[in-house]
């Protein structure tokens, strides 16, 4: 694979597919979209198989660099973290196309074209190795998503599309100014070089805040999360899957790729802010989720809570926290995507998201109830599912820093169990109080083809997370070494007994809290 521009090809396939969809219109666009996403999935698998994880492997692989533009270049390349997120993207995309297969009825060509554009841009975000190329890909995603929500969304779609667009745009533009300043200061736009560049600590504060404005909105963190429930509820099923599955991960990816390695001092300085916002988010949004009547809204709020677990893990400044955050992101990508899909499946039959309109589905839709249960458990974080691995590592990481943060965030897990089980009970168990819901048919072959791969992936990640951790291990270790110099002192004395560690601890004792 050396020298073969596989990343460019992965960007090109959906792009060509998108143009073909626009041209072919109603008739063939579904097939074209499915073919393009499946080709990209195969390419993604090839990427994974060819990714060198041996000892002493290069951190950045599949590097391409063509100085095409003034001031920046077409620079692509991935490390293990980007690889995993790209694999997640290409895995979810065919499922999105499948989810739209029958439920989308108008303007098919444009619909599938928008999704394929979206795929190009998402892969581009994770593969970009140039600061400005990253920004272009990151921002460009707003256009197709705006159109997807606005054209094919629900009743209140216009408000939701505006809110989504303007909220995220406002967050991102300040990041551009910070990027311009960074490129001017460091004299390069190359992301790997910038990751090793030491900005002055005072400048880091401002740069961190500018990036934080963007990633916190994208993530989304409390209190700038309010666009998410609106966007999710109004978006078509596939739009929700991609929004929850991949777009939210861009915020976490931004933190791990930019904020932490480029501004370690500022990250440590603002870690308390991140912890505070995350703690509030976990508890508050879980409580909000508990009282929702709309299934999509409930899952949207649960996404905010899960993303808060990601942020505390990221800012724990240790390997467990970082690995846990990555696994939570991957797991949430699968599980939240699957849950939105499950909502979409019954929405297609009854055309309502009201929880009260369903009930007793395990009687007439046993297979559906089984898969829904699996994903519910994965969302709660039951051992054996992907959710457990990520949350356990994240909370373990944060426990070393602050027992209190860990305590509050673990409360969120308990609340998570509460709202998810409550949802499941009302939808799948109990009596069949609604005749139309009782008459719904079980999963079709197409729907099975979508949920089975998701279920297998969730179990795989839960039982053998090593497959997913191995590619990222070296990169996370490198990141941990990079931020070690700014590591805040924790309140957990886990290394007591070693003289060197003792000295290290007592030195920081005064400023620990």
């Amino acid at each position, binding site marked *: 694979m050396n020298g073969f521009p596989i990343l460019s090809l992965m960007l090109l396939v959906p792009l060509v597919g998108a143009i073909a969809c626009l041209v072919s219109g109603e008739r063939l666009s579904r097939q074209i979209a499915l073919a393009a996403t499946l080709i990209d999935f195969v390419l993604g698998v090839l990427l994974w198989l060819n990714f060198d994880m041996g000892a002493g492997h290069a951190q950045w692989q599949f590097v391409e660099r063509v100085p095409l533009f003034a001031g920046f270049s077409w620079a692509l390349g991935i490390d293990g973290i980007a690889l995993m997120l790209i694999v997640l993207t290409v895995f979810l995309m065919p499922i999105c196309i499948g989810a739209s297969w029958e439920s989308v009825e108008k303007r098919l060509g444009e619909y599938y074209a928008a999704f394929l554009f979206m795929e190009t841009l998402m892969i581009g975000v994770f593969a970009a190795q140039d600061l400005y190329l990253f920004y272009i890909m990151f921002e460009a995603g707003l256009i197709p998503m705006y159109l997807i929500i606005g054209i094919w969304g629900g009743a209140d779609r216009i408000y939701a599309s505006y809110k989504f667009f*303007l909220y995220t745009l406002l967050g991102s533009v300040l990041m551009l100014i910070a990027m311009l300043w960074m490129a001017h200061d460091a004299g390069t736009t190359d992301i790997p070089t910038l990751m090793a560049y030491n900005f002055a600590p005072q400048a880091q504060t401002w740069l961190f805040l500018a990036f934080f404005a963007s990633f916190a909105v994208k993530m989304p963190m409390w209190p700038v999360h309010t666009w998410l429930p609106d966007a999710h509820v109004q978006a078509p099923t596939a739009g929700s899957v991609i929004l929850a599955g991949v777009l939210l991960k861009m915020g976490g990816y931004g933190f791990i790729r930019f904020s932490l390695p480029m501004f370690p001092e500022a990250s440590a300085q603002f870690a308390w802010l991140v912890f505070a916002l995350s703690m509030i988010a976990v508890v508050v949004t879980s409580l909000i989720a508990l009282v929702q009547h709309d299934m999509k809204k409930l899952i949207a709020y649960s996404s905010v809570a899960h993303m808060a677990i990601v942020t505390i893990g990221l800012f724990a400044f240790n390997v467990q926290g970082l690995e846990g955050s990555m696994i939570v992101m991957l797991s949430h990508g699968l599980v939240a995507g699957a849950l939105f899909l499950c909502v979409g499946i019954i929405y297609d039959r009854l055309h309502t998201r009201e929880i009260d309109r369903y009930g007793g589905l395990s009687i007439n839709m046993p297979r559906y109830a089984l898969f829904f249960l699996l994903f519910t458990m994965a969302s709660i974080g039951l051992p054996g599912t992907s959710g457990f691995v990520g949350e356990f590592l994240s909370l373990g990481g944060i426990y070393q820093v602050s027992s209190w943060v860990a305590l509050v965030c673990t409360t969120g897990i308990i609340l998570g169990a509460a709202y998810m089980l409550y949802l499941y009970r009302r939808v799948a168990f109990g009596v069949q109080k609604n005749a139309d819901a009782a008459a719904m048919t079980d999963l079709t072959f197409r729907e099975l083809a979508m949920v089975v791969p998701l279920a297998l992936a969730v179990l795989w990640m839960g039982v053998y997370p090593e497959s997913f951790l191995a590619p990222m291990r070296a990169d996370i270790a490198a990141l941990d070494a990079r931020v070690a110099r700014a590591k805040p002192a924790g309140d957990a004395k886990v290394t007591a007994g070693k003289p060197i560690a003792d000295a290290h601890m007592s030195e920081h004792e005064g400023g620990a809290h």
Partner: protein
Amino acid sequence: MGAPLMDWAHSLRLIAPEELLSTAGLVLLLAAAWAGDKASRAISIVAVATLVGAMALVAPALCAGATGPDTVAFYGQFRADAFASFAKLLIYGSAAVALIVAPAFFEKFRAMRAEYPVLVLFAAVGTGMMVSASDFLTLYIGLEMNSLASYVLAAFLRADDRSAEAGLKYFVLGALASGILLFGVSLTYGFTGSTSFEGVRLAMAGGLSTGMVFGIVFVLAGIAFKIAAVPFHMWTPDVYEGSPTPVTLFFATAPKVGAMAMLMRVALDAFGAQAAAWQQIVIFAAIASIVIGALGAIGQQNIKRLLAYSSINNVGFILIGLAVATPQGAAAMLTYLAIYVVMTVASFVVVLGLQDADGNQVERFADIAGLSRSRPLLAAAMATVMFSLAGIPPLFGFWGKFVVFQAAVAAGFVPLAAIGIAASVIGAFYYLKVVKVMYFDEPAGKVTGQGDPVHTVLLVATGLVLSPLGYLLTKWLGALSGSAAAALFHVG
């Protein structure tokens, strides 16, 4: 003996594009007088050919990066350097487009008159002189030549009240602006003893008198009228709305580029020695234009009025490049102007394409609802332009904003850049509204007219530039605008 003659020969060679255009304008005026309106189409074709010829004449100076004493004509009255060439290419190009799209529009009103191409030619000559002027007198002559032709063009649809109103408004306010400018020039002359840019710069290098500050303020205020920067923007929406659409296309491009380039030369060359004296004014005008342009556009129901506010908004971004007063900032302005011209041409060609079944122009928002169903290509072009004007990547409009903010950050104007870009989000709101009306709303079924092949060609061409493919032009555009800006900053 031979030296003065050589000088004249050299000067006449430098103004070859102006000679070509003036001669063609005069000959075509005679042709129009003899042949009448029947010949209007032929005259338009000849005028377009002349403009293309003039572009060919100015292009070499840009490619060669012409600068220095060899580019000075008529003893310092006129400069044909790379900077002027860059602006003239944009001016002549957009004038040619304004001619190409005109016949189809005016014939519907039975108002295609042979004077139209001639007036556009004269306006183009005047605008070209504005950007080449290196003396306040040449500048004023160019400005008036452009303005007089423009006043007539604005009122070209004599039978239409709105067009007559636009012409009158443009004339009254334009005359006022000229007066303010002249007053500033007279103050400048009084306090520096010279009308040439070089003389003014040398005099100002020694120090800044209070009287000269007034001179600077009045000159800048006069030019701010011409570029429609806040707080001198009030005429723009009315004139844009009332003028016939091809004329609005012309106003939004050629004179805008001309006035902006003229402002750059005045500020950076004539007043370049005392940049601190005018930077605050420009910063204020920039921020105010961005904010007022964006807020003013939100309530508009007419597309042409919305585009007028959008142009005010864009002028604000361009002025950020001027405020930093560096060669990089000037190059960024030129890049922005080039992209802006492409976006503006595309947007007005779309407006021209909005016709109901009887071929009447449709300009109201409510009438273009659901345009993406009835005219998908037109709607896609308009959406591209709107996202591009909003500066959303990957569309090429982003690049203009990008280079301007890059220049601002490089020069240490980080707060200005941050405020400017945050205010751009306000602008995004109304650009999104256009897309929303065309794509999300139920079709109004009003726009049903057939597309014009000429429009399609123009839309495809501009659409390709504004698409992500446009980024392939960035190196080329950067090199050209860089050498043009270098010529502007070349002293002596």
